[in-house]
């Protein structure tokens, strides 16, 4: 039996304490221990970017991290981008709204990693050019969209955030 260790991880603002195998990836921890299945696994070797989460505000590949490495850290996932709201039609985060309005997702499997990556981009660079967006998402594979609607959605989200005077 693999070694077990107790960890406490704050996910989307809520602290979770669990005893986990030391070899469990952070992605599996989020998905199977915390049942936050919005984070997706596409390759398990750090190339596709679908599993990207924010670790203390910076993007990280949750398939390349162990859960124990996240002990004591704060993580944000796709489930935490918009505050929970029982009203299904309540507005989402401006980036999510822009994704929907620009058809920036089809199957939606790469979307969790795209959203977290773009949130980091917009925090660092609130008014990116389309070339800067393309470079920022170059570590995230999408097989459906051809990327251009994702670029358009990101630029749209930047405009919305600026208009609202809001940080991503």
């Amino acid at each position: 039996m693999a070694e077990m260790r107790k960890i406490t991880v704050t996910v989307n603002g809520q602290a979770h304490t669990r005893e986990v195998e030391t070899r469990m990836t952070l992605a599996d921890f989020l998905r199977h221990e915390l049942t936050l299945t919005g984070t997706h696994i596409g390759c398990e070797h750090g190339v596709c970017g679908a599993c990207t989460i924010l670790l203390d505000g910076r993007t990280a590949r949750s398939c390349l991290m162990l859960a124990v490495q996240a002990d004591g850290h704060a993580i944000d996932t796709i489930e935490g981008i918009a505050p929970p709201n029982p009203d299904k039609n309540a507005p989402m985060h401006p980036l999510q709204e822009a994704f929907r309005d620009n058809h920036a997702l089809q199957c939606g499997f790469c979307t969790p990693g795209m959203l977290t990556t773009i949130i980091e981009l917009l925090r660092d660079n609130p008014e990116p050019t389309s070339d800067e967006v393309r470079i920022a998402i170059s570590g995230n594979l999408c097989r459906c969209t051809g990327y251009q609607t994702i670029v358009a959605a990101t630029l749209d989200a930047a405009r919305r955030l600026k208009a609202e005077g809001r940080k991503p």
Partner: protein
Amino acid sequence: MSAPSAVRSNRVLRVEDADLLKGAARFVDDLHLSGMLQAAFVRSPHGHAKVLSIDTSMAKDVPGVHAVLTRDDFLPHLATEFIVVGLPSPAYRQDINRPALSGLEVVHVGEPVAIVLADNRYIAEDAAALVMVDYDPLPAVGDPREALKPGAPLVHSSSPHNLLAEFDMGYGDVDAAFAGAPHVFKESLWQHRGGSHSIECRGDVAAYDSFADTLTLWSSTQTPHAARSVLAGMLGWDEDRIRVVTPDVGGGFGPKLIFYPEDVAVALAAYITRRPVKWIEDRREHFVATTQERDQYWDAEIAVDNDGKILGLRGSIVHDHGAYTARGVNLPYESAQTVTLAYEIPTYQMNVKLALTNKVPVTPVRGAGQPQGVFCMERLLDRAADELKIPRAELRRRNLIPGDKMPYTKPLKSRGGRQVVLDSGDYPKCQADALEKAGAADFAVRQAAARKEGRYIGLGLANFVKGTGRGPFEPVTVRVDPSTGQIIVYSGATAMGQSTKTMFAQVVAEQLGGDITRVTAKPGDTGTMSMGLGGFNSRLTVMAGSSAHLAATKVRDKALLIASKLLKLPAEELQIHGGQVEAKADPSKSVTLGQLAKSVAGVAGFVLPDGVSPGLEATEYFVVDDMAYANGAAAIEVEVDVETGGVHINKFVIAHDCGAVINPMLVDGQIVGAAAHGIGNALYEWMGYDDNCQPVTTNLGEYLLVTAPEVPLIEVSHHESPTYLNPLGVKGVGECGVVPVAPAIMSAIEDALREFDVHIAQTPITPGEIVAKIEAGRKAKA
């Protein structure tokens, strides 16, 4: 065709998006059942080997392992151990079907030989490494041309040879046409397409209910009804004991329409262990166990007159079939059939041989062999144009089928035996439009100016016609729920990211009140529809959309009829608005759809409204055998770095005609996404194997998918020639964007590098190969 409405033809936002954007969608790996075991497969490390023995004892001793199952464990439960799925064809020379698990001979790397079931995937993979399989390696053959040579290693040691199938296709006296032709040009082409690489790999969850004696399989399949049928046949069970459900699917692109050994293995493991079982394919497994498209080798020649008019085209194809038949001869059939579609070609002959190889089976990937047919045609046209010194676009224009000849009968038969009739479209207009939008008029000037700056730019062009909307039918039920009034749509038309639920909502809402939020589509569940074919071949909007339209129209008519009785008003004076039927003159006189459904849902002993049949629902089976042919043209400008061989796409225009457009936003999305896939097929994607049939590209660092910086802005120009073949006037769109891209890019690269006489007869092409061609051109001139 009915007139466009506010709902149809509009840029309606998708009903799928909110859940996907909030992380609330439900993919198969998101399903967790109590007591569920996790599976890992033991797979062949050899391209070809005899299996001498399998020792599972060490693996079974690992704590947390519940079972390790092999072929011997499966056989008592199977009516047949083989997955028999080959589409009918007289071309087969051998029936070569995949077993549920291999136990005697493995014929490709990745072939499953055992399934390990454990408390979690980590333990299952640990134990899988401890399953001791004693293999006796045998010679393997990977090149389909080599496989067909006398004395080649046999892919299956029990086969007489490696020819899986052979057929000829064509019409007219092609030899006479060539004998009298003033010009004949020949090309030998290598065409490669890789895997599908949906970002979600495959996956299954199976649960056996011993009380009901039924089995449920949640699978990321594009074809749940076919999966149920194959599984029932293998188990020898009535189909009603099996329910296959497709939850949200993270991209399909073809290979998820196939039924796999893993699907039956997971189902059977759940049955044998009486525990729910989950298996989620990892990316490395996707590279070795999910079907691919891979290689075709073409020899083709074209006969033209002095004006560049085509007199005939003939040739042969050797197609890499892989180690088993997982779909049929359809892929190279479509390749051969697509060659001539866009042009007037009086004579045609193509010989097609399908060769078994020791590689994972070949089945359709987005485009399904049709990009290869177009590549052959367009490369030959570029060659003929250059040799005759006629501009490439002009030579094409002289040969394209003109719009006023539609519908145009091709002397070809579809693989189902139907006459090929191109139903509609204006091919020359699409070409002219793409060229204009790509700035072809002043391209020569720009090219010369760029050359003076030391830059090499080129403009490429390719036309295509693609068969879409494969029949014969896709049933749809539209039902007003008597309890909630919600309009529910059921169908086997399975969604995998192509916005099928939104399409249903638009088509149905158009007839039933105009509010798409009142429509809930629940496709992809054999528990709700007795029949279905599924999602493939750009068919769902054509086939299921038409059925949904007809069913919704019936429900509308019935709703109006019942309402006219309840409201005591003539049906003509009523309309459906939102969730209710109301008097046009006085909307306060109304009755909700839910009340109408309840009024015909039946109350014991009470009569139905006069003359009305039970239930506010309808099921329609729109049947069409002929395919709807979409078309288009791509014009692409590239810039080639002659030192590095790097290709940068400066401009990408695709003019496209998929008939009536239900949602332009979604059509754009399909075309652009497929076009990006085409860029990958031209410049990046290569599924490599070594001489022993060991795959050498088994992760996404070695196998290159296009990323955002490689994809240019893709400009889509819509043309709408509605087809007469269905009530919506629609043609399929999902695969179309991929079809013209590789030939247009090769055309553009050649155009950029004319001074080096670069000639490209392959796809993909790498920077190194481009540099080598430039060097060869320089040397030849020196």
